[in-house]
């Protein structure tokens, strides 16, 4: 049976443990359609191998409660990948890659509450999937930038053309990004932070 030491050890590998001094965490959400490269981006900047957290959506959760008889409850599992960057001894950044469909967002209560901001990862071959995401972030007042993941066979558009196509307000930055590349993904995050900094500064002035 279950004697001491026979239980599997679950938890981070010792090299993935945070220092005792880690006292505060911030989060950034990477939003985009299926296959746009969210997990790739998270993985290329994360100091740990990306982890997956899952949330189950039961039938009750989607508003169906007329299940008759003894049928087994069906559950849909929705996964979200995330990574981590230790910014200094105290401060840790978590990056969550979340599906673009807003109906999944509520599964992780408070995903956007307290988030510094969001990166909307866009595939120029499928611009239309980004419209809804951008609209929802605007509604929620989450500051974001748009990162164009440069797929080799994707059509190239001038940035201003994309701004018009995506109906983006003038201030929202658009950057190009190769999600596979650590430096390129890091630069997209830094661009988001500079944008947030300018927003905070302009608010202080007004």
């Amino acid at each position, binding site marked *: 049976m279950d004697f001491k030491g026979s239980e599997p*050890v*679950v*938890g*981070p590998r010792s090299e993935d*443990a*945070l*220092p*005792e001094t*880690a*006292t*505060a*965490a*911030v*989060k950034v959400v990477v939003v985009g359609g299926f296959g746009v490269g969210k997990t790739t981006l998270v993985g290329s*900047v994360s100091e740990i191998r990306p*982890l*997956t*957290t*899952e*949330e*189950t959506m*039961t039938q009750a959760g989607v508003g169906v409660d007329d299940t008759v008889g003894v049928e*087994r*409850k069906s*559950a849909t*599992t929705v996964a979200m990948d*995330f990574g*981590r*960057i*230790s*910014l*200094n001894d105290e*401060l*840790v950044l*978590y990056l*969550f890659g979340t599906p673009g469909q807003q109906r999944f967002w509520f599964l*992780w*209560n*408070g*995903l*956007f*509450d*307290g*988030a*510094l*901001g969001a990166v909307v990862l866009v595939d120029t071959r499928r611009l239309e999937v980004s419209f809804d995401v951008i609209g929802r972030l605007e509604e929620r*007042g989450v500051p974001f930038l748009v990162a164009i993941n440069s797929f080799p066979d994707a059509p190239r558009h001038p940035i201003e053309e994309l701004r018009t196509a995506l109906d983006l307000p003038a201030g929202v930055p658009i950057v190009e990004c190769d999600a596979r590349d*650590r*430096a390129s993904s*890091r630069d997209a*995050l*830094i661009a988001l*932070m*500079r944008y*947030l*900094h300018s*927003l*905070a*500064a302009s608010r*202080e002035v007004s």
Partner: protein
Amino acid sequence: MRGGDEEWDEGTPERLYVITGGRSAPTENSSLDLVTLIVAKSGPTPGMQPEHAAILRMCHSPLSVAEVSAYLHLPVSVVTVLIDDLLSTGRVLARAPVAAAQLPDPALIEAVIHGLQRL
């Protein structure tokens, strides 16, 4: 032979119901965020529910709620219930995330930029 029983699927609502003793996630009352860092104040004690014990073991150094969920292969909503149990009995500490939604502090943003530049 296992009769007509279905396999015990790890992710079924039934199993999750058992782990939390039938409680659903106190999402409104819980102060826990995905990135709240959890630190154990002590190790597990005999007779403790295995999931509680596992959380205490893995949180000997700080770990976010999201990471606890990933390592335990349990939904955040379930892990939140379990961590709230441990908080109420004083077995773990929670280090609240930096709230930034409406007014990010420029100094905080600068710290993030400096950290990213070192990557």
